[in-house]
C-alpha cells in the first residue's frame, strides 16, 4: 500500500470527526468547513481506490483481492451516504451522524493496512 496516502486519510478523517463532535457539542449544524473537509477526504479515498487496485495487480503478496477491494469500495460509499443522511437533519444530530461516518474511514484504512501487511 502507498502508506503516506493511508496515513493522510487516517489523520484527515480524525480531524473531521473531532470537528463534527465539536459542532454537535456546541449545538451547531453541519457547516461548509466540515463538508469541504469531507470532500477532500473523499477525493483521497478515490485516489486510494485507484492506487490500491494498481498495486494489487502488481504485487506478489498473498493479499485476498476480494476482501481488499471490498474495503476499498466500502470506504468510498461511507461519506456520501453519511452526508445524505446527515443533511436531512436540521439539528446538532446531523453533525453527530457525520462524526460516526468519519470514524469509519480510519477503521477501514487500518484494516486494509493489516490485510496488505499479512
Amino acid at each position: 500500500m502507498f502508506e503516506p496516502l493511508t496515513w493522510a486519510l487516517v489523520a484527515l478523517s480524525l480531524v473531521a470527526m473531532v470537528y463534527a463532535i465539536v459542532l454537535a457539542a456546541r449545538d451547531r449544524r453541519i457547516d461548509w468547513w466540515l463538508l469541504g473537509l469531507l470532500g477532500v477526504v473523499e477525493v483521497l479515498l478515490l485516489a486510494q481506490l485507484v492506487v490500491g487496485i494498481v498495486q494489487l495487480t502488481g504485487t506478489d503478496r498473498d493479499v485476498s483481492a476480494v476482501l481488499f477491494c471490498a474495503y476499498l469500495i466500502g470506504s468510498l460509499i461511507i461519506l456520501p451516504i453519511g452526508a445524505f443522511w446527515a443533511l436531512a437533519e436540521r439539528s446538532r444530530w446531523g453533525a453527530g451522524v457525520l462524526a460516526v461516518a468519519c470514524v469509519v474511514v480510519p477503521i477501514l484504512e487500518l484494516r486494509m493496512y493489516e490485510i496488505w501487511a499479512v
Partner: protein
Amino acid sequence: MVDATATRQGPGRVLIAVYGLFALAATSRAAVQIATDFSAAPVAYVLSAVAAVIYCAATFALARATRVSRKVATAAIVVELVGVLAIGAFSYAVPEDFPDATVWSHFGQGYLFIPVVLPVLGLLWLRRTASD
C-alpha cells in the same frame, strides 16, 4: 398522540446511521465469506447472513418511521438481541462451529462490543419515541 416519524429524528438519526453501518458491515462480511469459502464454516457463515438480513430490516424499518415499521423494527431488534446473545454464547461453547467469526461472535468483540449494546439502545429509543 404517537408521532410515528419520531424514530428517524434527533438522536434517532445517529442510531440509524450506526444500524446502517452494521447492515453494510454484516452484508459485506457474509457476502465475502459465502462467496469465497462457504464450506470452511457453514454454520458461522449462514448466521453471518442472518445477522445481515436483521440489520438491514432494522435499519430500513427505523428509517421508514411509520406505525407499521415501528413494529417491524421492534421485532427485528428483539431478534437481533436474542441473536447476539445466543451466537455469543455458542461461539464460546462450541468454538469448532465458529472457526471464522461472525459479527455476533463473542458478543461482538471484533466490533468493540457495539453489536450487544446497539439492540438495547434501539429498544430504549423505540420506547422513548412511543411515549412522546
